[in-house]
């Protein structure tokens, strides 16, 4: 069971990780934008961010989730659901 505050915390971590990889500030990343449209993002930077997120929550994000056209918030929600299971 995940709560709203879990989701918010996850979203912050996800945004931080994406910002760190792209050199943007967290404010420049819109939670509702599709990840692939973040300026200067590319698959390699996304994967680096994923590794950071995985380490932070001690989870493993399956490769086939990466094929989805996820938004930043969508990724955070998926992370929250994985984190709740561990």
């Amino acid at each position, binding site marked *: 069971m995940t709560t709203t505050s879990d989701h918010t915390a996850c979203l912050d971590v996800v945004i931080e990780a994406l910002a760190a990889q792209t050199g943007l500030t967290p404010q420049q990343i819109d939670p509702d934008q599709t990840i692939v449209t973040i300026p200067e993002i590319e698959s390699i930077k996304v994967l680096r961010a994923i590794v950071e997120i995985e380490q932070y929550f001690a989870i493993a994000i399956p490769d086939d989730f990466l094929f989805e*056209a996820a938004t930043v918030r969508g990724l955070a929600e998926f992370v929250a659901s994985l984190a709740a299971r561990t």
Partner: protein
Amino acid sequence: MAHLWHLIAAAVRQDTFLHLPMQNQRVGLDEILERAERTAGQLLAARRGKEPRRVGILMANGEAWLRGLLTVARLDATVVPLPLPVSFAGYEEYLRHIQRIAVDSALDTVVVDTTLGGALTRRLGHVLPGVDIVDITEYDGAPLRRPAPSAGDDDLAVIQYTSGSTSAAKGVMLTHRNVSAGLSAVTDALGWTDGDAFGLWIPLFHDMGLFSLLSGLARGSSACLWRPSDFVRKPITWLRSFAESPATVQPAPNFCYDYLVAAAGSGIPSGLDLSRWRLACNGAEPVRHVTLEWFQDIFGRHGLRDSALHPVYGMAEATLIVTGPAPSGVWTSMSVDRDQLGLGERVRTLPSSDPNARNVVGCGRAVPGIQLRVANAAGEPYAEGVVGEVQITGTAVTSGYLGLARDRQPFTDDGWLRTGDLAFLRAGELHVVGRLKDMIIIRGQNYYAEDIEEIVATTPGGGQRRNVAIPWDDGDRERMVVLLETSLTGAAALELAAAARDRVAMHTGMPAVDIVPVPLATIPRTTSGKVRRQAAIRLYQDRYQYRRVVQ
């Protein structure tokens, strides 16, 4: 006989293994060949006895990929390697790309395994009606009972699609004869010995991954296989795994070496020993001088030999390798005037400290079996030190792109392949400086200007969206610059540019795009309305290069 199946089967030794270091596994090649017989039986059963003709392979790097390829060869069908989707770009555009390849190559079967995931496999079935999607993860069926494969040397072994195209899929036709010649050219050029083994994480659907792997196996050598995500997620962990594996030769694009240099900044494990690493081949995208210098500087301290860094030049159209330095040599570069690198211009050497100097890395000489010239469009060779187009011929070179009209095939009148790359020779060594074709290469993937233009042109919101895409290389990295005509100004124009940029990202997953909004009727055109690309490049240089752009 040049048949791919026989080439591999005849070379296999008892100690030829496919190593999968991340899974702590190794499988004998003789075992994989035997499994392929079963998979061939399974594939025929799944197709209710109909012989496959063109078979796509769509899965992550692993034993099943190689087994799938051998299965297709066993059945005398043609392999069509299919790319995996780009992270977070979504299914829609990706599936459309696969659909175009399927139509162009007349695919009748796609083999997949569980690495693809159920969701994508189901969607694939929907967009490819009439194509059998066969999961080959298991190999417990009855083996095929039929004589050895017998396709002729001029039958197609592989159709290799060059990546990135949205408009027209271009499949490089490679016969068994081409592939056989190409595979031996790779190992011959690298001074292959029985103790060598390829180690690679680059995807097998990419020509560099596929033909490197096969060339080692065709010599009876073992190979080590990782997945791109193993490398990208934890580059230094991968490097240690590589160093501890039997691998001695790695093929990879330039960015791989840049990436390892960057990753080294957060620490290198003590005891890392790279002294067994014989060759670090660098190709598939422009080789950068600074990358080689940094890599040597950092990893030389961990035993990497000076002779390991190995800039190579190749392409799918040549079944991979075209030029490479002597295997024991040390790479060289020369510093030239960056403003004198146009077609037919004589290069001018400059001290590397000169602000106009560009350091160009030498990629060695033509490999055995390939003839090379630097020439004009008519095929007349230029003198040494003059920039021209690289043109090649040889047994490993393709006869052309599948289904393309003869007059659109990239050959000179005397039948040499026009590569579209610009280079000059110096002491017989090829120095690649740019491209005639309107394309950029990012992470080893090709992106064509006409594809980007089409994506931008269909940005929603009304208007004609006339635009021109300009491949741009400032010497450090490549980008696609797009001049987009609009009646909008100020913030509204920037908003449109941002929408167009997002659209390119969603379609290609490629971020290296600058969209520059320009007033209507700015883009130079001929009287028939065709974009004058060279004039557009000058316009960008003179007027827009330093303005605010949406990135």
